[in-house]
């Protein structure tokens, strides 16, 4: 017994010693990072680069991942955020998100036809149609004025989307988003409208004769219709006379009395409609040809809050997996758009924790997609529609908590501003995190890594704004090598169309 106790104690001591070393190394960040280490690391990267061979074949499948608002600073911070959660990290900065390991990269110029800093409507329109348009408009030409209510005029200015072309070619198609499936990014894939806000008939002007976006999703009549639509936005599909199945004290939002979920079910054989995690889990991809999943009345929960949702929701990774399982039954191939829609919302709220955890979940979804597909026949693209005013600043030491206060190398105390107050590494140029007009608060004893902490902002705005700088495009698979240099955002469409052997614009 005593021996046994000794052994246990001894093991614990050893383990504790190991953890101490690991922790110490983590803080120091880089005892391994000798000159030889960097030389070896560089040589390995050169070898990998030399072995890259362009895949000039056509793609069977294309998966387009959009991190809404996922600017480069978001990617960098998310990389460190995830890296610092890993055991034996060297500070977290050395980490790579799944999509950062894709072989090809370009930058994307995101301006819209009428704005230097765009919103998600024209940016996704550019990505999915190859044509830039005005803010607030989905997959129409820039000649169309915003809020045009005449269907004939809108139809005359439609620009065909890659999803529509894929359906015409007989491919299966799907959209997945953590935002409403009628929101700008998924909406641009299947709908054409002069106003992104017309998501249900309740938002349409009384004298408009155009179809709302939810209606366009269900009425979509190209090919055999979308096979998968997963996300939030249930209220856009249910009538105001019907209680919501999860939030039973609320109703649907449609005023025309239509229950579009029923229309989906009656339109498609072997179809299903689900609104919670249990229903989602029960879906057998082998037996389901058309799946509509609407897991919230509006946007889905943030990933951080998802597990506390009453009805339960699938993660972005789980939705991506199910979508691929359904779409990949088509031997001709498929096109899938997956959006991490709430990176953008968290940034607008000035909440870096949630923005970064959403970006990490996008990385998880991409990793799963890479596992489930073959790079020989599947083009995978990961990009953002636009950036935000999110910054990584100061001179924090290696391994400094990315959500923490800046502490410079070798310093015992936090770095101070001109008033002698510490500041966080992460911040925003504008937004709700503004603490003025008086002197900045003393954050010394504030848990700035708390999920609900709002990073400081320089200019007071109720909602933080988008940023205009370029965003990254990561890619692997057929034609991925065409992503190089600095490109217009609309170039992404050209590469996808070429990869799927589609005639651009037709």
């Amino acid at each position: 017994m005593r021996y046994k106790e000794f052994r246990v104690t001894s093991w614990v001591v050893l383990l504790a010693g190991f953890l101490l070393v690991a922790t110490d190394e983590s803080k120091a960040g880089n005892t391994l990072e000798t000159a030889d280490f960097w030389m070896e690391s560089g040589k390995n990267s050169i070898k990998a680069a030399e072995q890259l061979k362009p895949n000039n074949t056509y793609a069977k499948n294309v998966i387009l991942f959009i991190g809404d608002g996922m600017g480069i600073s978001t990617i960098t911070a998310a990389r460190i955020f995830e890296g610092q959660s890993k055991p034996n990290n060297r500070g977290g900065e050395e980490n790579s998100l799944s999509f950062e390991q894709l072989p090809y990269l370009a930058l994307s110029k995101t301006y819209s036809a009428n704005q230097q800093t765009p919103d998600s409507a024209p940016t996704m329109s550019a990505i999915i149609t190859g044509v830039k348009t005005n803010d607030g408009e989905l997959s129409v030409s820039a000649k169309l004025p915003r809020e045009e209510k005449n269907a004939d005029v809108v139809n005359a200015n439609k620009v065909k989307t890659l999803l529509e072309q894929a359906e015409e070619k007989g491919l299966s198609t799907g959209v997945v988003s953590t935002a409403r499936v009628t929101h700008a990014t998924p909406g641009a894939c299947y709908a054409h409208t002069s106003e992104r806000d017309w998501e249900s008939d309740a938002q349409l002007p009384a004298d408009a004769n155009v179809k709302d976006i939810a209606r366009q999703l269900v009425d979509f009549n190209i090919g055999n219709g979308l096979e998968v639509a997963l996300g939030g936005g249930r209220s856009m599909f249910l009538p105001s006379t019907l209680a919501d199945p999860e939030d039973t004290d609320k109703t649907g939002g449609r005023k025309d009395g239509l229950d579009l979920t029923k229309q989906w079910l009656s339109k498609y054989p072997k179809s299903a409609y689900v609104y919670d995690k249990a229903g989602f889990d029960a879906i057998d991809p082998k037996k389901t040809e058309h799946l509509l999943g609407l897991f919230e009345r509006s946007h889905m929960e943030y990933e951080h809050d998802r597990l506390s949702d009453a009805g339960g929701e699938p993660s972005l990774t789980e939705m991506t997996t199910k979508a691929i399982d359904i779409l990949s039954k088509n031997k001709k191939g498929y096109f899938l758009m997956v959006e991490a829609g709430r990176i953008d919302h968290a940034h607008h709220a000035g909440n870096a924790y949630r923005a970064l955890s959403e970006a990490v979940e996008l990385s998880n979804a991409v990793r799963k997609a890479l596992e489930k597909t073959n790079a020989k026949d599947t083009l995978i693209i990961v990009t953002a529609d636009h950036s935000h005013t999110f910054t990584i600043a100061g001179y924090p030491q290696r391994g400094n908590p990315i959500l923490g206060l800046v502490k410079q190398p070798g310093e015992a105390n936090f770095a101070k501003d001109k008033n002698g107050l510490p500041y966080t590494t992460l911040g925003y140029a504008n937004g709700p995190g503004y603490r003025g007009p008086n002197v900045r608060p003393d954050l010394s004893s504030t848990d700035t890594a708390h999920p609900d902490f709002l990073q400081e902002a320089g200019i007071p705005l109720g909602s933080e704004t988008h940023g205009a700088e370029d965003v990254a495009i990561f890619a692997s698979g057929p034609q991925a090598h065409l992503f190089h240099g600095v490109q217009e955002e609309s170039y992404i469409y050209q590469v996808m169309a070429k990869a799927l052997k589609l005639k651009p614009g037709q």
Partner: protein
Amino acid sequence: MLKIMLWVPVLLLSACAQQPGKPLQIQRLEQLPALAAEFETIVDSDDGQQRYHWRFWRTSKRVETHNLQDNTGEIWTKSTDGKIAYERVFHDQKQVIEYTPGDLNAIGAVPDWSAIATLLNQSMIAGLVEDGREQVLGRPASHYQSNNADAPIEITWLDREQLPALIKRNDKGHTISTRIIGIYPLAESPGPYQRSTNYRYTDFADIGDKESDPFIQSIQHKIKGGHNHSD
């Protein structure tokens, strides 16, 4: 935090020294009686006097206020799992900004249902002791006072209705007095519940994408996206 705290200026109060006497006790929140009430808030300062006439409706899962001066309101709802959602209502424009529980978390707002439903928060109650009884609008009430010299406060509490009839405090050169002027069964409220299907609803999460929307531009200064941390 959010605007309801304008009428209930309680959050900045520190706990007061305890005195012998009966403390104010709020009954179980689920048992708070449903009712409607009207209040008047008067803010006196060196700059003059401001008056606000406002209405209040309460059920076990919903609290609504309506400021008749600027014709705006707030609605708080509590779901069966205890999560709290919030709506900022602009009646003139027939527009509502909706905050889901996740939206509130993301902006660092931590709603306190007790404070929402009773207009008093715990730190405020902790410093109060009863110093008399009276009748308000023909209803029995208890009078409480704190002796915090930095932020003195007095409250008249309607025992049966579980609602303050008076909140009076001095803070930063202001005297803020909120007094009940009417109380009604919910069905006999002088104003109707303001929720309407004709109103346009906008998610708080979507505001950032509505930079060109004239209504959103006009209310940016009225909606609080900011946090509520002690920093």
